[in-house]
């Protein structure tokens, strides 16, 4: 592949003088090419299709319960938009509590996962020790273990530790992320070793080197890993659903599920809850979307 690529690439460098019109026409051509128009229409249709369910939920959240249940009045409902559903939910009190629980437990899971995975990944990437390849192999192999296979023994373990129905019983089993160790290790492998050697000659210890040279260079990947761990933790349903029974300790997805089971037919409220629960992550994505896409690219998922 590389030989062919090089020859065409060389020609590209030589070419500008030979085919000036090909270059000059390109921008204009791109704008009006029929394929571009088709692509634009296809993209717009798909985007609308993907946004519609959410917009529909949003519209319903602003309806009265009667309009939501009857479907009368289309997008706005017969009585017009109202914030009734939102005020009713927010006054139930527990929603704020659940959001708080979701926020701090997800943040704790993210921080602990990141801290323990990053130092371990650094050891796998840079340090030599006996049994390294076997241990790393075991960590990598464990990526395929479905967490659901572990729920029974994990629950049993939490019973033994007296952690059922406690925040730590919720948090601790979620901090083991072998896939993140793999991603971080791959990234650390690419950090030029000369930078570290230099600092070590200047007398810095391993941890010092890791902390003040490797970590600052790894900000993009740490950010991407943090965002994915946070999204996963925030949206996790099965484990929090099993381990937490106390209403005041529930996370948002589990808490909302109990409300929905209790008042299943109140569509406007249910949709208002859906909107409220997703708002924090949508805001996070809007702020960090460049970093997220770039993060995915640097995780080595990017191919080649």
């Amino acid at each position, binding site marked *: 592949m590389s030989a062919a690529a090089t020859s*065409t690439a060389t020609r*590209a460098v030589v070419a500008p003088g030979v085919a000036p019109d*090909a270059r000059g026409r390109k921008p204009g051509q791109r704008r009006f090419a029929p394929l*571009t128009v088709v*692509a634009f229409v296809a*993209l717009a249709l*798909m985007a609308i299709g*993907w*946004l519609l369910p959410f917009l*529909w939920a949003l519209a319903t959240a602003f309806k009265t319960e009667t309009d939501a249940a009857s479907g009368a009045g289309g997008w706005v409902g017969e009585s017009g938009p109202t914030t009734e559903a939102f005020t009713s939910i927010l006054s139930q009190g527990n929603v704020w509590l659940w959001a708080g629980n979701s926020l701090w437990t997800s943040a704790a899971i993210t921080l602990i996962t990141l801290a*323990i995975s990053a*130092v*371990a990944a*650094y*050891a*796998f990437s840079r340090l030599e020790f006996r049994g390294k390849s076997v241990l790393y192999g075991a960590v990598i192999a464990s990526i*395929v273990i*479905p967490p*659901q*296979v*572990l*729920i*029974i*023994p*994990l*629950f*049993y*373990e939490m019973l033994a530790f007296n952690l059922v129905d406690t925040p730590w019983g919720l948090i601790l089993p979620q901090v*083991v992320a072998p896939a993140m160790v793999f991603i971080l290790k791959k990234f650390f492998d*690419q*950090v030029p070793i*000369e930078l570290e*050697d*230099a600092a070590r*000659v200047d007398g810095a210890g*391993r941890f010092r080197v*890791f902390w003040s040279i490797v970590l600052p260079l790894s900000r*993009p990947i740490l950010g991407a890993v943090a965002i994915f761990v946070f*999204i996963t933790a*925030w*949206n996790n*349903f099965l484990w929090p659903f099993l381990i937490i029974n106390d209403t005041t300790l529930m996370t948002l997805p589990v808490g*909302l*599920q109990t409300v929905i*089971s209790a008042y299943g037919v109140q569509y406007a409220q249910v*949709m208002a*809850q*859906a909107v409220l629960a997703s708002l924090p*992550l*949508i805001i996070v*994505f*809007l702020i960090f979307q460049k970093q997220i*896409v*770039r993060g995915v*690219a*640097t995780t080595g*998922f*990017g*191919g*080649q």
Partner: protein
Amino acid sequence: MTLDTASGRAGLADSAATRTIVTGRRAGHRRRHAGDRGEQRIAWGFLAPFLVAFALFLVWPLLHGLYLSFTDQSLTGAGGSFVGATNYIEALGDPVMWRSLGNTAWFTVLSTVPLVLLALVMALLVQRGLPGQWLWRLSFFMPYLLASTVISQIWVWIFNPQIGAANGILEALGLEPIAWLQNPDTNMLAIVIATVWWTVGFNFLLYLAALQNIPETQYEAASIDGAGEWRKLFSITVPQLGQITVLIVILQVLASLKLFDQAYQMLGGIASETTRSIVQYIYESGFVGYRFGYSAAISYVFFAVIVVIGVIQALVTRRRREHS
């Protein structure tokens, strides 16, 4: 990106690196010997927090679960005596277990195809650089940010037989309305549709990142050689996406096999013969039927299936690599 930051400090680092080379030789031998032991200690120190968590919350449950699967342990603490392979024999003769595995496999097939193809189409369209990038990305990725509770409620409502949008579309097309989630012929399809909408964004991002890694020079060279849009798509883009596609398919199959949250919640926790996944059956026998031992045995049957799929996949990729 690393290189950007790295090169910023390269000047500073260079001189120090040179110093290593100059002074390194003299101190080298002694340092390496002492370093070996020191480095071992440091390495284990670095690994300790992760390994403790790994052992406590992954390795131990994995082994303990295997032990439990040979007992008649119940949730309440009763039982717990060794019963040999009884649970496995029961599981292998349990039609509900096979049905759940079959449902899971069917869901995996139905969901993986659109989740890979649609993600590819979305990424190819977005990659063309049309205006409104943030909007396209947000549209396709946003559902992935929603909790399963949220997507379940949105789709339960869309599939509502009386007021739901899905039947609204069918009626507009002159078709008969369907009781999507209540009808055993359509409820799995409804779950697949909701799942594709929910999770395609992640694969879309992976494809988009892979597309951005294809060097622009290849396209420029092809343009100069007179290649058209389609030619470039099939001669440059598609071949370059081979590896990422294998990865996406593997990740997707693993993810689809874990079906539970949305299927459980969209049906309101009611087990339907046609949608009960293997994970749901693990949950039901353990936490509803209180039979931890039996539940653990089903977990290991499920795990064995995943391992078999993993081995087949590894063999296929190896053969592909040998061929190319």
